[in-house]
């Protein structure tokens, strides 16, 4: 697994370095927009996976409540770190209550 970690790290680092190496004229608006689209779509998928997936099934458990609380706090412009903490407290609290 260590080699997988190193390989993935190099892959991620290559994006970072690439941005410092390519001349500005190659950066078109459409490429910039495509990168933003990939990010949005991936993050949305990760929300679903982290919130509702259990191996190969879809479940509704305490994590769904974490997401609901997080969405409400984000809409109220609560700082990111508090949103993350509230996500943990919600899931931990519900499970402590045996739900």
């Amino acid at each position, binding site marked *: 697994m260590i080699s997988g970690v190193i390989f993935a790290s190099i892959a991620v680092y290559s994006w970072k370095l690439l941005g410092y190496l390519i001349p*500005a004229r190659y950066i078109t608006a459409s490429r910039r927009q495509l990168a933003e689209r990939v990010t*949005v779509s991936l993050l949305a998928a990760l929300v679903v996976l982290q919130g509702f997936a259990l*191996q190969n099934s879809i479940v509704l458990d305490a994590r769904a409540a974490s*997401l609901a609380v997080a969405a409400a706090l984000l809409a109220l412009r609560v700082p990111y770190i508090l949103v993350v903490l509230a996500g943990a407290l919600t899931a931990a609290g519900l499970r402590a209550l045996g739900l």
Partner: protein
Amino acid sequence: MTKQVISTSVSVGIATGLYGISFGAIGAAAGLSVPAVMLLSLLMFSGASQFAFVGVIAAGGAPITAISSAWLLGVRNSFYAIRLSPVIGPRGLWRLLAAQLTIDESNAVSAAQEQPKDQKLGFWLTGVAVFIFWNSATLLGAIGGNLLGSVETWGLDGAAAAAFLGLLWPRLRGSIWLAVAGASVALIAIPFTPAGVPVLLAAAIALLPFGGKK
């Protein structure tokens, strides 16, 4: 306004540090060794990519799927680097170091400053602060997570879900349908595809010309 840049950088560092504890614990719970979890934070050093990597491994996905998910999520760092390059103008080895510190947080703090001097300072200070706090926190989480027991008891899986939503939220304006499409594709694919593949399919959806910013 240099003082304000310093305080912003340090508080962003502390905030991501708290979140890093979650990452360390979730990584350890996914079955990765403490050194492997630490290498992710030290070498990959990009929160969303790290969580994606660990998430795929935890779900029993193949390493290649974990690597692809992490890699695809890293693409936005390229665009931060393009923005930052003229601002901080790194040369030689500094460029290699600047690249490693190019993440959501360092770019955001830099972009929020008005003076070029503060933009440069904001990038370096935030990058270094996040690096220090994120890695210390990962170590705490990876070791502590093993001692404290399950990720579920502490709600760390709920924290990770909330964290992804928090990263997505500011990007939703004008892209809500794209997000809905990505989420739907992942939801539909979960029962039918190996772990990690739903995320890659969602990435493919982004290539189709619909529902995004014009």
